[in-house]
């Protein structure tokens, strides 16, 4: 495996294998076991858009495995403000690193970078396009909770139009036979092009604006933030902001093992009183970004992961 641009770069077998690798790496991700598999390797972190979790978890993943990280830093203090093209930035960092994690506001940036670079590119989000490493950590979180990623009822809520996280995840879930319920206001519906593709791939979809009735049968409720920065018009944002707010009381009659996920940051979609319920999985999900990215970095750099890790086996 080389670059990871979209989930189409991974077969279902690849996904299962990487999720197993991630599980094996849990003691390393938690700092309980030292395993410098990526010693001497350098990750180039190029984040042209703000990011906390993705950037930090890539960095943590690399460091937990003994590797090193170089950062673009703030775009405002880089050559980008002097008018450097993405092409030139990539060609430069290509020479400084063994693998590049790229987040960029423009769609297609990761594929473009992959065409410029010799080292593998991990797409860490390209505009409203794809975010496959987020999808992998989401699948890992689902698997940790349910023991499988197949044939589950997943409710996706909020900004389904601009949310690249949801786009990548919905393609992956359909591949594993999950039923999707898409909950959003009219103006933030999943783009028709994606709905059609999901249906063509055999996806079973329910589209609605009402959240609460969907909770009872759900195995996973995936909340998302309405992303102010993606709206061209503030009035349009104000009309839909805060439309879905999950509170602990809403969870009284849900399935026992249902999990609530969120790619974070949240604004007010999930009330803090949900945090202490058995259903809250979003902080664990954020941690899972580290272990999943560890597995992905090893796979992309063709570094095998030992069968047994830790415990002196």
């Amino acid at each position, binding site marked *: 495996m080389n670059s990871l641009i*979209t989930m189409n770069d991974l077969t279902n077998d690849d996904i299962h294998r990487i999720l197993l690798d991630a599980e094996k790496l849990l003691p390393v991700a938690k700092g309980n076991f030292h395993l410098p598999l990526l010693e001497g390797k350098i990750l180039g972190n190029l984040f042209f858009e703000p990011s906390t979790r993705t950037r930090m978890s890539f960095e943590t993943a690399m460091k937990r495995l003994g590797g090193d990280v170089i950062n673009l830093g703030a775009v405002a203090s880089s050559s980008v403000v002097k*008018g450097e*093209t*993405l*092409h030139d930035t990539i060609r430069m960092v290509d020479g400084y690193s063994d693998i590049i994690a790229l987040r*960029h*506001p*423009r*769609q*297609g*940036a990761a*594929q*473009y970078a992959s*065409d*410029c670079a010799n080292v593998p590119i991990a797409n860490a989000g*390209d*505009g*409203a*396009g*794809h975010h496959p490493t987020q999808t992998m950590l989401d699948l890992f979180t689902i698997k940790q909770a349910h023991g499988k990623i197949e044939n589950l009822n997943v409710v996706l809520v909020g900004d389904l139009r601009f949310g690249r996280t949801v786009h990548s995840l919905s393609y992956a879930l359909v591949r594993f036979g999950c039923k999707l319920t898409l909950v959003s206001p009219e103006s933030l519906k999943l783009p028709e*092009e994606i709905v059609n593709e999901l249906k063509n791939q055999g996806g079973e979809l329910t589209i609605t604006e009402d959240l609460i009735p969907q909770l009872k049968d759900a195995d996973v409720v995936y909340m998302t933030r309405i992303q102010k920065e993606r709206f061209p018009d503030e009035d349009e944002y104000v009309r839909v902001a805060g439309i879905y707010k999950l509170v602990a009381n809403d969870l009284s009659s849900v399935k026992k093992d249902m999990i609530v996920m969120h790619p974070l940051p949240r604004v007010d979609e999930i009330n803090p009183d949900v945090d202490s319920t058995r259903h809250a999985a979003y902080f664990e999900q954020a941690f899972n970004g580290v272990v999943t990215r560890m597995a992905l970095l090893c796979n992309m750099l063709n570094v095998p992961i030992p069968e047994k890790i830790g415990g002196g086996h």
Partner: protein
Amino acid sequence: MTADEQAMRRVTAIRNGTVIDHIPGGMVLQALQIFNVDGRHSNPISLVMNVPSRKLGTKDILKIEDRELTQEELDRLALIAPMASVSIIRNYTVAEKLSIQLGDEMINVAHCVYSNCISNAEREPLPHRLKVLNTSPMTLQCHYCGRNQNLDRLVKNLL
């Protein structure tokens, strides 16, 4: 006389130039745009629009006098008329028949219709690449952002 022959004779034969037949009905004005014909500074042009066609239902025909279109120009025509047949006319006779050669990808023919695609960023040097997913109906996808292209909008984005 067949319907196709009748259609062809609606305008006079040309002495030298290019005749493009089997352009889908109503698309000939876009074809002119593809060949950068601006109306005021061009060679004599004859158009036939929306005549019956066995192959296409309705079709357009375009005759451009004293200009032999190149293979590269014709390949751009594939955007709107992948089935078009092209004859180069010299001294009232068909000197050459050309076909549109559409590969798996169109490179530097048009730029992606999504303004936020990286390929539309200023000064980025890599070529504009559109993958040909299907020819009937013509389905093109940007190599970079992966979005399917609206052909009416794409014709406005010709390079």
